[in-house]
């Protein structure tokens, strides 16, 4: 009996340690993605969408429309890689500009960038994984062929 109690509690303890290590690793990964993502944002996006994500008047949409970004989460990677030239409604304002394609970003950089964007400017969507980026881009290619 005593033995079982000891071994069960040992098991529980190790499980707890593993679990917390996992959680920790996740949050470390998130932090890393987020801060690297900011660097990518500064280089490739800030010129247009501005440091505060507010865009430029009726010309460049802000990245503060949390509903739009949530509803279009699957499309975000493709907007960046293939550009966007559409009529879109952000915060009830129509934008019909043109965002140039940014073909030179690796999936990992896209994941970091999107982690930054979808968790800044009022957004709170959690981590954007490399796998998710690659799946989204593949789906986009399939749908458009």
């Amino acid at each position, binding site marked *: 009996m005593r033995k079982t109690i000891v071994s069960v509690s040992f098991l529980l303890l190790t499980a707890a340690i593993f679990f917390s290590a996992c959680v920790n690793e996740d949050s470390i990964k998130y932090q890393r993605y987020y801060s690297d993502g900011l660097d990518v944002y500064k280089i490739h996006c800030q*010129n*247009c969408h*501005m440091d505060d994500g507010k865009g430029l008047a009726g010309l460049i949409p802000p990245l503060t429309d949390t509903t739009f970004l949530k509803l279009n989460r699957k499309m975000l990677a493709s907007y960046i890689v293939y550009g966007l030239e559409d009529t879109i409604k952000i915060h009830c304002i129509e934008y019909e500009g043109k965002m140039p394609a940014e073909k030179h970003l690796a999936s990992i950089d896209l994941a970091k960038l999107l982690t930054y964007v979808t968790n800044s400017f009022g957004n709170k969507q959690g981590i954007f994984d490399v796998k998710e980026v690659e799946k989204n881009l593949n789906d986009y290619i399939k749908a458009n062929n």
Partner: protein
Amino acid sequence: MKISSIFILSISSLFILACNSEPRKLPILGSREPVEKTVDGKTVVDTIYQTIPAFSFMNQDSAIINNDSLKNSIYVADFFFTSCPSICPIMSKNLLTVYEKYKGNPEVRFLSHTIDPKYDTIPVLKKYADKLGVKGTQWSFLLGSKDSVYLLAKNGYMSYSKENDSIPGGYEHSGYFLLVDKDKRIRGAYDGTDKDQVAQMSKDMDVLLSEYHPK
């Protein structure tokens, strides 16, 4: 008693001094030439300052903007193009804040010259102005032939920086805002992508305006 009156005296003289000190004046940029001329039979030396050469361009509403239409205003000039992915959106955003400050003031104008006349036709410029929230002619987006705009940039607005030939993208795409007075002299040059410099320009514009309204 004595000490305190001395104290009050010195404080008040400080105040008087502060009041009498010349108001800050902006420098006049660009080349200058001394010329001799005769006034009342005496020879005096006068200085001729460099000015912006005459021009005539069409704005987003197809109105002609030339030297004459600007004679009663100070203005800010810059060079841009509507499809520019790099520095132009930030410049427009920064200039927009200054425009908002002086909106409706007939003494202050803004001229943005496109350097891509092929793409930036009048309707394209009109749409750009609309989307930016700019109405009327106070801020004009100007269309001219590539050559004339380039020459105006080189011989007019950017010539104050002759020694600096290495501006990336060339004179006409340097990202600068040039502040010009009513006599078409350049009174300031500011990096249009830098918030702090643009804030300085906004202050300098008040200083320049006060030259025309002496107390």
